[in-house]
């Protein structure tokens, strides 16, 4: 369900074009982020490098959701595009701290009996635990802060909210945990792993083989078994 690609493996997978178009359709056309508009309707930027982590929620080849994670020990949005959001404060930048960017799901899409946006959120949490990503830096609206806090993420605002490009944005430091993942599972009706990893997937933090944190796959079925 949620596929992971690092850098150019996105191109190799054949999903790249659909991803650029999906991003343009949602961020430019739907949300009106004019600064991202491209004449060929493919939204990509200078941070889509070989190190970028692409999490692609797809069903039968159709993209239903997407998130991009950027390592904070390399240029990313908060360091290079809008550092003023930090209001002069510092934040942790490390190889196991990633910036969570371009997160969006197709509204009212579902797969395996679960809302796409819920699978996306669950999948990001599961990916962090699987890859050993200790924390995510996010620049977002206070509403998402509540979503994460209610799901037992350990969230700390990094600066006071400010108005950026006409909207309220607050930078946060969000730490996922097994308890947070379990909370997502309960709330979303997920009963296993939502990650789909290629056999040779490498952990973006360590470079070793990546394995899922949850050892069984989500089945979308609730099975009660009684045995003699």
């Amino acid at each position: 369900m949620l596929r992971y690609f690092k850098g150019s493996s996105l191109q190799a997978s054949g999903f790249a074009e659909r991803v650029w178009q999906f991003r343009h359709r949602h961020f430019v056309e739907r949300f009106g982020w004019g600064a991202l508009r491209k004449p060929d309707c493919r939204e990509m930027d200078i941070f889509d490098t070989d190190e970028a982590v692409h999490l692609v929620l797809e069903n039968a080849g159709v993209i239903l959701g997407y998130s991009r994670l950027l390592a904070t020990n390399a240029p990313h949005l908060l360091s290079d595009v809008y550092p003023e959001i930090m209001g002069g404060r510092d934040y942790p930048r490390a190889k196991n701290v990633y910036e969570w960017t371009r997160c969006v799901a197709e509204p009212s899409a579902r797969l395996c009996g679960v809302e796409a946006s819920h699978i996306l959120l669950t999948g990001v949490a599961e990916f962090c635990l699987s890859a050993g990503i200790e924390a995510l830096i996010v620049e977002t609206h206070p509403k998402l802060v509540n979503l994460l806090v209610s799901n037992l993420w350990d969230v700390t605002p990094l600066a006071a909210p400010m108005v950026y490009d006409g909207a309220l944005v607050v930078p946060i430091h969000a730490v996922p945990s097994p308890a947070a993942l379990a909370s997502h599972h309960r709330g979303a009706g997920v009963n296993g792993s939502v990650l789909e990893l290629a056999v040779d997937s490498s952990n973006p933090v360590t470079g070793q083989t990546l394995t899922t944190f949850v050892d069984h796959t989500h089945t979308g079925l609730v099975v009660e078994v009684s045995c003699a």
Partner: protein
Amino acid sequence: MNTHDRQQAANVMFDFITAMTAASDANAIINDLSKVSKTFGLDCFAISGIPLPGEKIDRYVLLSAWPEGWFERYVAENYVHIDPVIYQSKISDGAFVWSEELGGKPIRREARKLMNEASEFRMIDGYSVPLHMPGALQAIVTFGAEKIDLSTEAKGILHIVAIYAHNRLKALLEQQSGVCRKDAPYITPHERDVIRWCAEGKTNWEIGQILGRSEKTVQHELHNAQRKMNCVNRAQLIAEAIRIGIIR
């Protein structure tokens, strides 16, 4: 907001978040929220869940620093079910100032009566923060005042404050209401056996051999146990089982 004001406002927010990590009861939260309220020119506040149609709100109120007398009136008249602020909070997850959001809209006669009564208690305007979970409204945090004059940044800070106040309150209430109940899900004897053998490092197939059951059955029992104990994998299940005393 100039830089100095922004720094000050940021400190109000950070101080509140820090205070919440130490707040040991609802009164502590009320004290801290009072300080923040005064800073932004607000007079009163409350945190409440939302009753179902036909229910009364009093059981759902988590924390109240509402004007004396108004709370009793609000409950007695069952105002929660005609309050346009409550209705707005249900249909949208955006925080809003009452006069800004409801100002242009037509108000039913009963709602108008409610608002007039509220203004007798000097709650003429307010800022409400609905806290939605996917698919449901968890709670509303509302600040009331005679007059609201909040910059967008101030609204953002109050939104964050509301989130942390509610989160701490919820945690304290859960702690009080029965840690024991939450800590001891019912694990069947079969499930307990399976967990014990997991902790010994046996595979599902081996456990099936030892207990005379199929590997599939063992797998299902394991998944049931994980679900009940809110664990997502074998290692966490074993750790949690040891923690709550199912196995040593």
